[in-house]
């Protein structure tokens, strides 16, 4: 029973990672940028959601505001920071992105205090649902539902809509896509918007899960998101989803079996390094 419970915990973690990593892989696929600052968007969404929830008492409204505030911030980061340095070597954008992350972590600390804020009323945190002898907290169930719904919506967007086709065309060949009338600029803004909305919703959910929103909450999840997109084969969407779930499970079981030797983050990165040494192109990536 214990191992089944670990399986569920791993899946919940995996779903959280998937929501972050899908956005990171979208951005990487289009621009070859490791968007570490996604963590800032995630934390921003969580704070916006928490302040809305505590001000109005409505969780649906909190998700809406969290998603929109986060969603707006992504394209702004792209326009002000990434767009002017697209033609520079790849480390330039990566370092700039780390700069945003580090600076804003301190920024959130100054604005909202170092100890973090809690939801005044968080019914999902205390309510549990039991089935077949297992008990899950309501937030955990919502995380799985949100991940499934959002990722399915993305799959439909990518395969069935004009904007989705334009996105895929731009990923595979920007100049050709442009010559066929695709607005590459528009595609990039849309990708940043979608990635940021996903991060914002994930932020509110993780805030509810821990009943705590704090300045540093985005850092580790974003570093692991990067590890996941590398594992999945950079820019590869199915690989990213598989790697998210796999990493969630590895962490869940690893923290039990390797507790004496390594902590959770070390397990995640050990797994990443081990896989990359065997398959340098990632789990589902194509060989060079």
């Amino acid at each position, binding site marked *: 029973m214990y191992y089944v419970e670990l399986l569920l915990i791993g899946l919940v973690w995996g779903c959280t990672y998937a929501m972050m990593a899908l956005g990171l892989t979208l951005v990487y696929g289009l621009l070859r940028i490791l968007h570490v600052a996604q963590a800032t968007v995630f934390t921003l969404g969580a704070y916006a959601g928490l302040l809305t929830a505590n001000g109005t008492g409505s969780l649906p409204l909190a998700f809406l505001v969290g998603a929109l505030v986060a969603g707006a911030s992504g394209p702004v980061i792209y326009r002000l920071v990434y767009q002017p340095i697209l033609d520079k070597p790849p*480390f330039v954008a*990566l370092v700039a992105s780390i700069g945003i992350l580090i600076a804003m972590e301190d920024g959130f600390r100054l604005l909202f205090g170092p100890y973090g804020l809690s939801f005044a009323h968080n019914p999902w945190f205390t309510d549990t649902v039991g089935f077949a002898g297992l008990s899950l907290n309501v937030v955990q169930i919502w995380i799985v539902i949100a991940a499934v719904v959002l990722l399915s919506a993305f799959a439909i967007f990518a395969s069935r809509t004009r904007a989705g086709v334009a996105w895929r065309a731009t990923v595979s060949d920007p100049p050709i896509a442009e010559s066929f009338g695709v607005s590459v600029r528009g595609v990039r803004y849309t990708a940043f918007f979608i990635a940021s909305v996903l991060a914002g919703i994930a932020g509110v959910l993780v805030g509810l899960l821990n009943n705590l929103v704090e300045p540093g909450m985005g850092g580790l999840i974003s*570093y692991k998101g990067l590890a996941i997109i590398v594992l999945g084969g950079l820019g590869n969407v199915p690989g990213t989803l598989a790697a998210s779930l796999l990493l969630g499970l590895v962490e869940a079981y690893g923290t039990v079996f390797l507790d004496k*030797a390594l902590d959770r983050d*070390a397990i995640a990165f050990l797994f990443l*390094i081990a896989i990359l040494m065997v398959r340098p192109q990632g789990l589902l990536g194509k060989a060079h």
Partner: protein
Amino acid sequence: MDYYVSVATFAALNVILALGLNLISGFCGQVSLGHAAFYGLGAYAAALCSVAGAPLGLSMLAGVLVAGLAGAVVGFAALRVREDFLAIVTMGVGFLFLGAVRKQQWLGAEMGIARIPSPLDKWGYAMLAIGAAIALVLLSAHVRRSWMGRAFGAVAQDEDAARTIGIDVAGYKIAAFFLGTAAAGLAGAIYAHMTQLIVPDAFNFVQSVTILAMVVVGGIGSTLGVVAGAVLLTLMPEMFRFINDYKLLVYGALLLVVMRFSPEGLAGIVYRLIGRRLA
């Protein structure tokens, strides 16, 4: 006076760390986001030796070798993965080091190692650190002009082309990682003896980013630029109290602004002002 001596020592340690990273990332073009792990490896190795009764010189040698050899192993990883993949792998190495040290009772876990023997006084460590920093500046300048430096440059610019003209890409990558991380180990060994207390958190991801900030703010690839960057970023929080309170905000914003407006850093600005091409 004591205060100035210790600020000077820290500035010298940061120069060593930044020049080490510059060898790897600036000269040889291999992005590393885990430099603090080797700083930590050097500190822990030296501390363990000293606690066991080894003399200072031997402990420092142990710190340098342990960090350098671990760096060479990461250099092998750099043969398998490149650029963005390598950046993430080196970041992972940092978290792996931290997570492993935190769980090891024999390394003091979260509490670290305390009461490390300290054979020198404040002035002694200052001389040691400044001497090591000067030696590293000379080494950097020498490597830059040597055959090895040119080979590093070739690997940085175009690995495949370098391989085509017969440059031993694998060997030079491993050499760059060995030299750069051995320097970090040296800084760690001096740091451990000077402070007599080391904890895992002193070598976390933020520390890695801080070292990286010194390199890019100074001007990646430029020895004098990197020295200036390291000294500047050490002195700034000391000179302005408000910067010390918002250190990460300032470092982060600096990284962002430098990358956005002058990716060649301070060195790039200076070269542009005096109208010379960047070396």
